């Protein structure tokens, strides 16, 4: 799937109860960059605003209050990180789940996502881990970005859709968080 394209997950796949969003990357020799990457899911209302601090799911907060969205401590398969979404358990006030990747500002030189050789996202069937869709490789189009909105899973006509976004931020997690109304 190219950036901007979407698919109606629950309409296309009968009985789909949820999805696992898998993110994979190849940083080549940039090991410190790979160790600085963070995947997060932001649970947003209809206006695209995070409901609260507790609705930012990442390595230091592996789930949100209802546990409908969870980050796995150890991803299965070839993915570097995985996020599970249980559709029926997602509270009604959550309209959109935005999956992002950012470079944590570490001690050393500022690194960017442009150094990645490969970066992609895919959606799996929560029941059996079968791959449903996957995005194009984002890496060739990246340059000075330090944060990236990878995809969105959102409500549509009573079901759930998956959209590949690939929107970059050169302002890192601060800019991305501000866009979603999160105060760090």
């Amino acid at each position, binding site marked *: 799937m190219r950036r901007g394209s979407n698919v109606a997950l629950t309409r296309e796949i009968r009985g789909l109860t949820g999805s696992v969003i898998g993110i994979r990357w190849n940083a080549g020799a940039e090991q410190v960059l790979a160790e600085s990457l*963070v995947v997060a899911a932001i649970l947003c209302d209809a206006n695209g605003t995070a409901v609260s*601090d507790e609705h930012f799911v990442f390595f230091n907060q592996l789930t949100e209050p209802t546990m409908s969205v969870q980050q796995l401590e150890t991803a299965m398969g070839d993915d570097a990180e995985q996020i599970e979404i249980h559709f029926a358990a997602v509270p009604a006030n959550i309209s959109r789940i935005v999956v992002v990747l950012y470079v944590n500002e570490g*001690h050393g030189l500022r690194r960017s996502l442009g150094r990645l050789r490969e970066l992609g996202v895919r959606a799996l069937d929560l029941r059996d881990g079968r791959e449903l869709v996957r995005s194009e490789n984002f890496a060739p189009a990246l340059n000075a970005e330090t944060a990236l909105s990878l995809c969105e899973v959102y409500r549509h006509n009573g079901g759930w859709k998956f959209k590949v976004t690939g929107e970059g931020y050169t302002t890192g997690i601060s800019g991305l968080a501000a866009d979603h109304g999160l*105060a760090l």
Partner: protein
Amino acid sequence: MNVDLTAPAAAPARTDLPFLRHRTRAAKPERAITMSLDLTPDEPIADRRPGYQPPRIARGERTVLTPTAPMVRLTRLQSGIGLLTFDAVWSAGTADLRLGCAYTLVGGYSSVAQQDGAHTGPMSSRNPVILVRQQRFGRLTVDLRQSRRLVRMVVYSRTERRHAVPRDGNLSIRTIGDARIELPVGGAAPGSVVVLASVYTVDGELVIRSELRSFTGSVRDACRAYGFDGITWLDANTPAN
């Protein structure tokens, strides 16, 4: 030896004893005997959370830790995003004042990172959790991407040339959202090691506490006083690799 076991003449008569012995007591509800291994009590257990929770600090806010309000608690976002930066600022004439910290990582590894000597934690790490930099007054940063590796740390200052720690000093702690926590640092005797602050990881949240305890001995003495017993020392101020 004679011991008088007779009752004191002034002891009042216990007229209430017959009543106490024969009163009816409320029957205890009998718990049904079951072979179930479910040990959940019949009645709900009262909330056992501690009564005191250190206050939060919001983005862009400034708070000063005092003896009456010595602690602050960061959110999980503040504890896991960006860097936590400790900046020491002292009055002029104290160029030999050095900043350092003792730390324990998950797995039990403990050591010291300081401006002279091993300035990363862990030592010689390519991607350290803690880095102490040679700024004018000393800067210590914690990479919060690795905050789940950190169990606890104490930040200290010490003088090389046995100068007194100045009265006009300040330790400023800053999050990625520019929340500022400040500790006014009072004076201390020459040659002192002053433990300025401690940081503990509690359920994914960093709790920062003002300590301001002065030790007339070495860095080793200060670390041992705070329970860092697992560090091997080359000398009184230098840990072994």
